[in-house]
């Protein structure tokens, strides 16, 4: 590197730092920046376009060595996240635009804009030791001066570079919709690949599969705590179906949540994380209970002498939907308040189980058996009943993404049970896992801290 280049780089660094200083406020998202992004989206959609066209050039390496090719791979990950959000049409694998050279930047953006791009996302990458940092800059290419919408720095160990790319995508979605995306999330699920049903988890896009249990018994029904630090699940690891909680990111021993005679199943954390609803048959038949994690006290909510099971909380924590056969005949979905009073029936016909309340509160997805299993959704007031899956095979066991815009579910439409995703309206159904070994019982995590 010669003297001139060094000087240019030093100047670029200084300029970058100055920019950072002035943009420090932008990191806390002042209202002006957010509304600008939303305005761009609205304006583009008003023209009849269905999506925002975004160009994500390869990132620019500012400091350090990019031995892993992250400057090229990270924009791909971000691009796929934005495609998955269904809000963007994405172009990637484009040479990096000049960092801190306004003239070259403008020329590149003018090119993109004339090709139809509405948004440009630039990433300035620095590798220092075992940590990687990306400063993302989001530009409005529909404005004549290609105005900067927002800028943010994200820094993590280099082993978690994919998370940086996901967090960038989530920030982009936040800038345009007012709510962060869901790319930095995990999906926990049951895998039969080892011959036994064990818990595994992976990034929401299928990368980074890790084993969570390895006890060679039957492990079922994982659910995330709202702080995303723990999973509750049912396991036969001690012979009988008990409820446990484990901490997949911490070296902590597993806890027994409930180990009564009979079944201890169907865990569901309340939205504030203080309570766990569950099914216990300790009183003679399966009933819905709530465990207070702080006090260890159990409170029974249902009293019907037949099956009551599968509780799911409303996002307010004030209501619980559940499955009961109290109507006689096939199981149906009911709703009660969080103390167990005011029980009302929600579904009318079919064999209905596995209710899951949307984080948005306006829909409950459930599995209905009318021949095969299919996913349906209904409003909490019983309105807006709609079918979400159809076609050959079974579709079951849906779980909502934390923004309520996507679902993961299991389907055997291609042979064995694998996980699929879809949008909240049932569209864009696509496979997530491929096997070998069946994957079932998926649970979408909250956004990772």
């Amino acid at each position: 590197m010669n003297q001139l280049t060094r000087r240019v780089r030093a100047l670029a660094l200084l300029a970058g730092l100055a920019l950072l200083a002035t943009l420090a406020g932008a990191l806390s998202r002042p209202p002006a920046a957010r509304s600008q992004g939303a305005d761009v989206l609205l304006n583009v959609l008003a023209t009849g376009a269905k999506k925002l066209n975004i160009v994500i050039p390869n990132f620019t390496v500012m400091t350090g060595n990019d031995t892993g090719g992250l400057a090229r791979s990270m924009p791909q990950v971000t691009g796929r996240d934005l495609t998955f959000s269904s809000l963007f049409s994405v172009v990637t694998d484009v040479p990096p635009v000049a960092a801190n050279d306004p003239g070259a930047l403008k020329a590149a953006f003018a090119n993109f804009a004339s090709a139809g791009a509405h948004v440009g996302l630039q990433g300035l990458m620095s590798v220092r030791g075992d940590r990687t940092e990306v400063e993302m800059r989001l530009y409005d290419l529909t404005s004549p001066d290609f105005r900067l919408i927002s800028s943010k720095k994200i820094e993590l160990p280099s082993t978690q570079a994919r998370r940086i790319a996901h967090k960038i995508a989530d920030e982009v979605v936040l800038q345009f919709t007012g709510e962060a995306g869901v790319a930095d999330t995990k999906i926990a699920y049951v895998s039969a690949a080892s011959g036994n049903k064990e818990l595994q988890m992976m990034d929401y896009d299928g990368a980074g599969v890790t084993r969570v249990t390895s006890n060679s018994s039957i492990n079922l029904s994982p659910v995330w705590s709202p702080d995303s630090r723990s999973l509750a699940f049912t396991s036969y690891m001690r012979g009988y179906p008990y409820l446990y909680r484990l901490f997949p990111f911490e070296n902590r021993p597993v806890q027994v949540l409930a180990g009564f005679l009979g079944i201890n199943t169907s865990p569901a954390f309340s939205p504030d994380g203080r309570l766990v609803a569950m099914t216990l048959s300790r009183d003679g038949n399966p009933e819905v209970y709530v465990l207070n994690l702080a006090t260890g006290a159990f409170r029974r909510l249902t009293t019907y002498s037949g099956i009551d099971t599968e509780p799911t909380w409303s996002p307010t924590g004030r209501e619980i939907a559940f499955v009961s056969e109290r109507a006689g005949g096939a199981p149906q979905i009911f709703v009660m308040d969080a103390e167990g009073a005011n029980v009302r029936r929600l579904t009318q016909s079919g064999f209905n189980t596995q209710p899951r309340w949307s984080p948005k509160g306006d829909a409950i997805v459930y599995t209905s058996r009318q021949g095969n299993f299919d996913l349906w959704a209904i409003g909490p007031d019983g309105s807006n009943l709609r079918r979400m899956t159809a076609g050959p095979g079974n579709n079951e066991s849906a779980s909502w993404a934390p923004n309520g815009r996507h679902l993961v579910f299991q389907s055997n439409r291609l042979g064995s049970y694998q996980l699929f995703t879809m949008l909240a309206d049932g569209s864009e159904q696509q496979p997530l896992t491929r096997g070998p070994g069946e994957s079932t019982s998926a649970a979408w995590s909250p956004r990772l801290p």
Partner: protein
Amino acid sequence: MAHRGSALLAVPVLVLSLFLVGCPKRPATTAASAPPPTAPPAAAAPSTTPSMTPSMAAPATAAPSTTPPMPSEFMANDNLKDIHFDFDKYDIRGGDAKILDANATWLKTNDNLVLIEGHCDERGTSEYNLALGERRAKSTMNYLVAQGVQAARITIISYGKERPLCTEHTEDCWAKNRRAHFLVKAR
């Protein structure tokens, strides 16, 4: 945020050695699990029945309050025949009642512990079937107790649809899987 991120390791294997028995491979985890967790007090360990709070409903019916033997300690016995159930039902049908009568007779002259398994076919969803299997085992137990078999000898366990006898998608296979199965263990 960066510090929180460092706790979220991308290290591939997070094998949890939870309970020291049967998991001798991971002494490091064993050491970590020795002290009780500092997190909020966990609910009951399986060896004790936790006390109920005043907000609980009526206390449990007469049932063993100590930890039952492990299912793996029980063995099948040709003298105890399976019974079967209608779809989504757990009541005892006439023909099956006769089988249970014979089972009860044998049990009253052979003083073993009994484990009753409840099973389901694949046409219910996973969680619901755990409850349905539980009801089937319970109905079976209630019938035997009514025939004079001591309740304290009997433990029930539901496997839902997790341990099917067959996996074909046929009425014949489904009927086989909707069953209560008996295992015994010497006292």
